[in-house]
């Protein structure tokens, strides 16, 4: 019984971390058809922002929840202005340019911070479930993932910005003809997506630590989750993360962590073959 609870909790935690590490990418891809291959480095930057702020005396929660998203959001706005804006509608080119950006960011952070920035330990302590102990912070992250999805849904569904963003995403030319400035929407969206990546990077830092190359551990999983999810930003990410996270965890528990990872990757390949437009490309097409 305890084991079952702990297993479910672990699945929840795997799903939550997939959601966290892909949500920023999903927003940017879903709204703008831009794949940000520097996404992993955006997360990395979020981690560095949080840790640097913390090491300078900022309250840990403030560092993770405010400083990290703000810093990366600003950085995203600059990147949008300098690079992304010139490549709209050229999916492959944006992928290449952001990949270059990813290399440059790794190099830059290495030069600035070096490789031995001390991390922060996970707050909140641990708690017991029957005979097992688990980090309370992991449960907190599950909560944050759910909160982010719900908040995202509320924003898209009920706010003016959400409405305009959804309309622009479906038909930018028509949105412009109605008076919306699509490039402004894109700029805001990119900044918001970046800020979400920063938030996720900050929140994940206590568990994974930060080194300049940590982005590589995130990007492939995030990329695969988002594409498997398909067009719908939130439900796509949520469904794909749930599916892949559950498969990964179950296979890890049953076999080894490598097989868990391989099972995740194989599942994604099969999924894309069966549903070439992703899960929400076929089902739940009108979802958010």
């Amino acid at each position, binding site marked *: 019984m305890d084991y079952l609870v702990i297993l479910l909790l672990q699945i929840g935690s795997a799903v939550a971390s997939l959601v966290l590490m892909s949500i920023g990418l999903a927003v940017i891809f879903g709204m703008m058809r831009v794949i940000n291959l520097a996404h992993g480095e955006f997360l990395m930057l979020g981690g560095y922002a949080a840790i640097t702020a913390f090491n300078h005396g900022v309250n840990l929660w403030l560092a993770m929840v405010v400083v990290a998203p703000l810093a990366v959001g600003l950085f995203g706005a600059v990147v949008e202005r300098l690079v992304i804006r010139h490549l709209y509608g050229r999916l492959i080119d944006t992928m290449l340019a952001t990949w270059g950006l990813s290399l440059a960011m790794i190099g830059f952070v290495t030069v600035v911070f070096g490789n031995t920035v001390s991390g922060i330990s996970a707050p909140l302590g641990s708690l017991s479930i029957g005979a097992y102990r688990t980090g309370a912070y992991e449960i907190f992250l599950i909560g944050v993932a759910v909160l982010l999805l719900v908040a995202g849904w509320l924003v898209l569904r009920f706010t003016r910005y959400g409405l305009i963003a959804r309309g622009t995403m479906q038909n930018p030319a028509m949105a412009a003809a*109605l008076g*919306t400035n699509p490039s402004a929407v894109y700029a805001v969206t990119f900044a918001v997506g970046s800020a979400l990546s920063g938030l996720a990077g900050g929140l994940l830092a206590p568990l994974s630590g930060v080194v300049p190359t940590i982005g590589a551990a995130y990007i492939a999983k995030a990329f695969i989750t988002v594409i498997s999810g398909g067009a719908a930003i939130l439900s796509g990410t949520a469904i794909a993360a749930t599916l892949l996270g559950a498969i990964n965890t179950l296979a890890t528990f049953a076999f080894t962590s490598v097989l868990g990872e391989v099972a995740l990757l194989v599942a994604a390949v099969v999924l894309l073959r069966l549903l070439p437009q992703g899960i929400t490309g076929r089902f739940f097409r009108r979802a958010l």
Partner: protein
Amino acid sequence: MLDIRGLSSGYHKIPIIFGVSFQVAAGEFVGILGHNGMGKTTLLRTIVGQLPATAGAIRFAGSDIAHAPTHRRARLGLGYVPQGRQIFPGLSVLDNMRMAAASAGLGDSVLDGVLDALPRLRSILGRPGGVLSGGEQQILALARCLCAEPKLILLDEPTEGIQPSIIEEIIEILQRLKGERGVTIVLVEQNLDFIRRLSDRVLIIQKGRMTGEIPPDHLGDDELVAEFVGMSAH
């Protein structure tokens, strides 16, 4: 209200319209009649800003908009009901309208007035735009345009692929708009009957050039009809 002089444009390097000039006064309903491929849609898309003008001037409500971005033209009060309707498929009917109001910087309060004018939409407010029939989409496209409270509406072939009963309804709506609200409208069509029943005056576009103007009641003329449709039995 709208003053177009020597306007040329086209797709990529292929020129489609050549030095088109015409004027529309406030409150006027101008029909532009032309066959397929004569440049009607290109003309409207150039006015809206979706295609760049290669030459000429567009003045609207007192400002030169020939090189303004699309959204700025829309904010100036240029409304557009495009060919093929371009409904946001994933938004509900209500959200399609709210999107328009929001894009124009208006509140949801405008919606009621529009729904009063187009009561048919009230019963389908919650349905996604993508599942509507062609006729319903056309009415929605019109409603969406109205939600931005435009000074001038550009209508691109609203009868295309639409059932006759709905066409009749659209005619009634447009007549009412013209009468009650005094909206200025430019309509491009190849549907003679439709254009005749609505327009104050009718311009003819042929191969990307404005070739003439005729009073709408002449459109009933058998000779002209036969020539236009090409069905005259010589």
